[in-house]
């Protein structure tokens, strides 16, 4: 029997009143303006959820076209320049408009205030502003796509983006530039909220680890993102003024671009994975019915990753002509990141050990996350080894590693989080059997898509080519077949989650029997979250193994 069924049975035996509150944040007002001008962090979270889902499927369609093209060694579906535009579109949309905002702006917005017992974020209007800025950036990026696309790759590397580009680089860069300010504002809001808005008794080391994850992410957002902004600004200056900043033909320095770009973009990959840690930190103890192992280590590990993440950008440039000694230092610091990361994986597994593990949908996603993230992390260590990196640099090995972290990690965690908190967000349950099926499809489809790419990369297939030697075809066909399974796994939740809004069973305040202040509110929560400011008297994750009927 799953936890949800068990808890529901217990509720039905008790006072069987309707547990769907008449007045909640969804029903308090109904006009369109009440959504578009809302300052309620929960409604803004919903706005973000709708927007990033839209961008996810745009980025996904580009990936679909690419996988179709790669079914055959010859370029028959897409011309080379169209293929370039597709992988650029896929990268820009997925990184800047889906992965970066995904967990912080949706789940973080919704749950960070509730988890620390606050009525809202510190600056609700700035929160709304961040969504509008995000949308404005997104419109620029969409305009660049519709106008004919960009073919620089998501990294905007010079001289692709300067000398050799006649596409809409400026437009797309403007979109990314603008969207950056949205994540700066989110980060600023989170930092102030965590510092100043905690309920009485909610000490730093009583905060749920999801809040720690949001805090660590926010630090990267406010310190890294402005550097990307200034880099894109300089790129725009170069293109408008025709003066050499990054373009070697005009006397500029392309390595400077790479330094500045990765100074943001390496920390940014931690913006795209630490929130995933946060979600898994919540799910694993809940469905193991155990206190999380090594709480303080988990919190400190995330902070360590956030800070060390600023010191490793050079490992993207081992073959770019940076000094060998710089390369050695960057390699060593990159290995150091493996330590806090390994602590996290170790602690998740130890939490499971002797726990009362139940395989509800969120837990399936979380378990998938741990496995896939482990593979992604270990291959990351291979890539931070100088000599190995020279061999596999710019091959599908890197593509596979990156996707194991970003898709196997962050997207799995995001979906796990959505399934975990869906009853709280909407007050409804989704059909468990469909949830499990989609989790399974995503896991199988993902591995089939990306594991062959490790092999391809090791055999030497470079990334970003639309043609390849015939001997690589079998791995590419496997990968494309996996992608189609993955696509089904992504579309399914969209369908059954939307249907659950109308047909789902009433969830009740705490269907999983989870700890955490957000579960002490009705589902969906009222506009001000708490009737009275809660007073916290115990540590997080005080789960006790329940003696239930054995199955």
């Amino acid at each position, binding site marked *: 029997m799953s936890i949800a069924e068990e808890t529901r049975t217990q509720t039905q035996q008790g006072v069987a009143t309707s547990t769907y509150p008449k007045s909640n944040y969804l029903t308090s007002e109904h006009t369109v303006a009440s959504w578009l001008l809302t300052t309620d962090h929960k409604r803004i979270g919903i706005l973000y959820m709708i927007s990033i889902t839209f961008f996810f499927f745009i980025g996904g369609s580009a990936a679909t076209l690419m996988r179709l093209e790669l079914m055959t060694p010859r370029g028959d579906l897409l011309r080379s320049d169209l293929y370039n535009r597709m992988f650029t579109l896929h990268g820009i949309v997925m990184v800047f408009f889906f992965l970066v905002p995904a967990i912080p702006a949706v789940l973080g917005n919704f749950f960070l205030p509730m988890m620390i017992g*606050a*009525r*809202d*974020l*510190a*600056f*609700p209007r700035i929160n709304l502003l961040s969504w509008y800025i995000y949308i404005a950036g997104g419109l620029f990026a969409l305009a660049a796509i519709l106008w004919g696309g960009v073919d620089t790759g998501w990294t905007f590397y010079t001289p692709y983006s300067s000398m050799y580009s006649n596409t809409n680089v400026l437009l797309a860069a403007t979109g990314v530039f603008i969207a950056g300010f949205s994540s*700066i504002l989110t*980060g*600023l*809001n989170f*930092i*102030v*909220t965590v*510092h*100043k*808005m905690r309920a009485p008794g909610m000490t730093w080391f009583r905060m749920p680890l999801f809040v720690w994850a949001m805090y660590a992410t926010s630090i990267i957002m*406010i*310190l*890294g*993102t*402005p*550097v990307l*902004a*200034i*880099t894109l*600004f*300089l790129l725009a*200056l170069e293109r*408008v*003024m*025709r*003066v*050499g*900043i990054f373009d070697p033909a*005009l*006397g500029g*320095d392309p390595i*400077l671009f790479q330094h*500045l770009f990765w*100074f943001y973009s390496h920390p940014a990959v931690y913006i795209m994975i630490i929130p995933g840690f946060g979600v898994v930190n919540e799910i694993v103890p809940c469905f193991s019915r155990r206190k999380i192992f090594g709480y303080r280590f988990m919190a400190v590990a995330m902070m360590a990753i956030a800070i060390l993440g600023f010191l490793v950008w050079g490992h993207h440039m081992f073959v770019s002509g940076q000094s060998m000694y710089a390369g050695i230092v960057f390699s060593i610091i990159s290995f150091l990141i493996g330590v806090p990361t390994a602590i996290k994986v170790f602690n998740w597994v130890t939490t499971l050990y002797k726990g009362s593990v139940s395989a509800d949908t969120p837990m399936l996603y979380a378990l998938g996350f741990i496995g896939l993230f482990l593979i992604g992390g270990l291959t990351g260590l291979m890539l931070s080894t100088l000599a190995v990196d020279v061999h596999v640099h710019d091959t599908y090995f890197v593509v596979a590693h990156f996707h194991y972290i970003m898709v196997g990690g962050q997207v799995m965690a995001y979906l796990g989080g959505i399934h975990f908190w869906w009853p709280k967000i909407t007050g409804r349950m989704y059909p468990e059997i469909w949830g499990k099926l989609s989790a399974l499809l995503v896991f199988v489809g993902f591995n089939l898509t990306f594991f062959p790419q490790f092999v391809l990369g090791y055999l030497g297939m470079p990334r970003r080519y639309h043609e390849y030697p015939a001997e690589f075809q079998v791995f590419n066909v496997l990968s494309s077949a996996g992608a189609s399974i993955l696509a089904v796994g992504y579309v399914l939740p969209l369908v059954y989650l939307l249907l659950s809004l109308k047909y789902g069973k009433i969830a009740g305040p705490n269907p999983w029997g989870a700890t955490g202040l957000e579960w002490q509110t009705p589902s969906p929560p009222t506009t*001000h979250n708490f009737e009275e*400011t809660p007073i916290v008297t115990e540590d997080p994750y005080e789960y006790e193994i329940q003696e239930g009927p054995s199955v």
Partner: protein
Amino acid sequence: MSNAVVQEEPALLSHFDDLQQQDDSTKLGMWTFLATEVMFFGGMFLAYILFRWKYHAGFAEGSLELIWQAGFINTGVLLCSSLSMALAVDFAKLGKLRPLLINLVITMILGSIFLGVKAVEYSIDYRDHLIPGLDFAPHKLVEKLDAAELGHVKLFFVLYFAMTGLHALHMVIGIAAIGILAFMIYRNKFADGTTVESLGLYWHFVDLVWVFLFPLLYLIDLNHNT
């Protein structure tokens, strides 16, 4: 107490527990924002330092084209505005409306003088054909330097306009914000200490950026004989 200025309580937003929490949040928000700003300008300073090291001769030529006297006056003006802003913060804490408003207005006037001097400088640069993208053909340098070196001078001016322009933009935003704040204080008869202090932090930060810009752009090559 009939003569005392009526001090309205500022509105407590509904998601805060008390005014202390609200004020602390506002100030921490400003500090966090300034951390972002440091990184924002930092990338630009890095680019400037790298290219000055690579193309020293061209950058020295460019730097000598600037009117360091104007920069000197502007530095003085800005430092004075920092004083008046600091006084405004103090008077806001004491709840003295009149001197608070006077100091805010002085800060705005000094800020505007800075922008005025900057505008004169920019117009002289335009007259001398020193604006890349618009009209870059300084006669004196064209005769003296080869094409590559001229490119370096041009790069200097791109960075000069980008850095001082970004700084000027921050000044404009600061002056406008102080204007709105002063108007609110005048109308509501309430010295909003937290907002004045937060805006003060911003103003001092913008000053501080100039304190770095002035020597790096104007003074650094004054003893470089050409």
